């Protein structure tokens, strides 16, 4: 039985260590914040210029001047600070963020990542994703193992336009946890009751374990 989205977020939350500064991408990665253990003190970064993201506001607390990178209304915390976009990306590019968790369309054996564009469809833009994968110390991809049509998202070579080359360190899917080492994908943890055979059969990339 593969992991649920909640299982995946819980597993990802274990990668957030005490004292870390983290950037969580839009979608499922944002939800990882809900599973951070109480004794782990993590500061969340938002690339539009904030450290210390708090929970969503009560309706009575909504402040249109406080949003995250997904343009959602949020709140601040006692340790929060605000800064401009050039400063925000200086933090990212300069390697001061410990961890980024992002979604993906494809990840290759070399750790290449494609997550911003499907040619032929309307292009929305890369936003801050190229900066994050180039600058953050550790990049974790949180995604379904297979696309809706069943094709593997762990591929030998990406055929979609890249977000970054050799940038992914770890992948967490509904089938397990993988690390990229020396341009190889290594399985380090299987989801409960998922067999190695199932993972291999549902993966285009070569998997070592």
């Amino acid at each position, binding site marked *: 039985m593969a992991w649920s989205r909640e299982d995946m977020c819980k597993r990802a939350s274990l990668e957030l260590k005490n004292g870390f500064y983290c950037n969580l991408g839009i979608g499922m990665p944002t939800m990882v914040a809900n599973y951070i253990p109480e004794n782990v003190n993590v500061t969340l970064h*938002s*690339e*539009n*210029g*904030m450290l210390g993201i708090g*929970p*969503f*506001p*009560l*309706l009575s607390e*909504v*402040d*249109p*001047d*406080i*949003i995250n990178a*997904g*343009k*959602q*209304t*949020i709140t*601040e915390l006692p340790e929060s600070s*605000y*800064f*401009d*976009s*050039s400063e*925000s*990306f*200086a933090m*990212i*590019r300069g390697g001061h963020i410990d961890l980024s968790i992002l979604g993906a369309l494809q990840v290759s054996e070399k750790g*290449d990542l494609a997550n911003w564009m499907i040619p032929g469809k*309307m*292009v*929305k*833009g*890369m*936003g*801050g*994703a*190229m*900066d994050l994968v*180039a*600058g953050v110390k550790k990049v974790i991809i949180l995604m379904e193992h297979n696309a809706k049509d069943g094709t593997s998202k762990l591929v030998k070579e990406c055929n979609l*336009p*890249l*977000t*970054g*080359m*050799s940038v992914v360190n770890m992948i967490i899917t509904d089938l397990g946890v993988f690390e990229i080492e020396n341009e190889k994908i290594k399985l380090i943890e299987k989801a409960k009751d998922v067999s190695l055979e199932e993972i291999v059969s549902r993966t285009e990339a070569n998997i070592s374990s």
Partner: protein
Amino acid sequence: MNTSSKIYNTTKEALSGVLFDGMIILSGGFGVVGIPENLTLAIRDSKIKNLTVVSNNCGVDSFGLGLLLETRQIKKMISSYVGENKLFAEQYLNGEIELEFSPQGTLAERCRAGGAGIPAFYTKTGVGTIVAENKEIKNIEGVDYLMEKAIIGDLSIIKAWKSDTSGNLIFRKTARNFNPPFAKAGKICVVEVEEIVETGSLDSDHIHLPGIYVDRIIKCSSYEKKIENLTTSVGK
């Protein structure tokens, strides 16, 4: 009140003499937070056209820069994300508008560089992607970097929370975003604010953008401050 003559009475006056067809305008804000909503309206009403607009986003339909799409005043956008705007998609697919994608951090740094007299810099962001096309790659101590060039605008329009009469600015929360780097990269910088206070009433240790970067100030009373994604939690 005004010894510095930076203060104007209407957005139209604040933009008089600085607008021309084909100009490059840097427009502050992230999403629709901290955008110069009133100056954007005045640019729409000025009817200047063939604009190159540098902005992280292109507003939303019928708000912010989305208004200048309706009037087809924009020839080219330099942005990192334009996904919130159906009209943009339509004009782009019809070939009516040009688009240059710049990664968000690279965009912010290109403008910061433009304001700081740095014509070009190197970054890892975008190496090996379509962003690197036609750009110089340099290997520095074993790592490949991309050369990115500065952006300087003919005009910056930005939004701050408060200004003093000397043009010292304070921003509020995440409404700061691209406003300071864009202000610095414009040959002329016009700022709209929610409040103008006497010089001396802001703390000199806590000025976000010194008045040296601000040429014209207009206080606006009307702020829609649209919310794109209202997300709330329930009380405990």
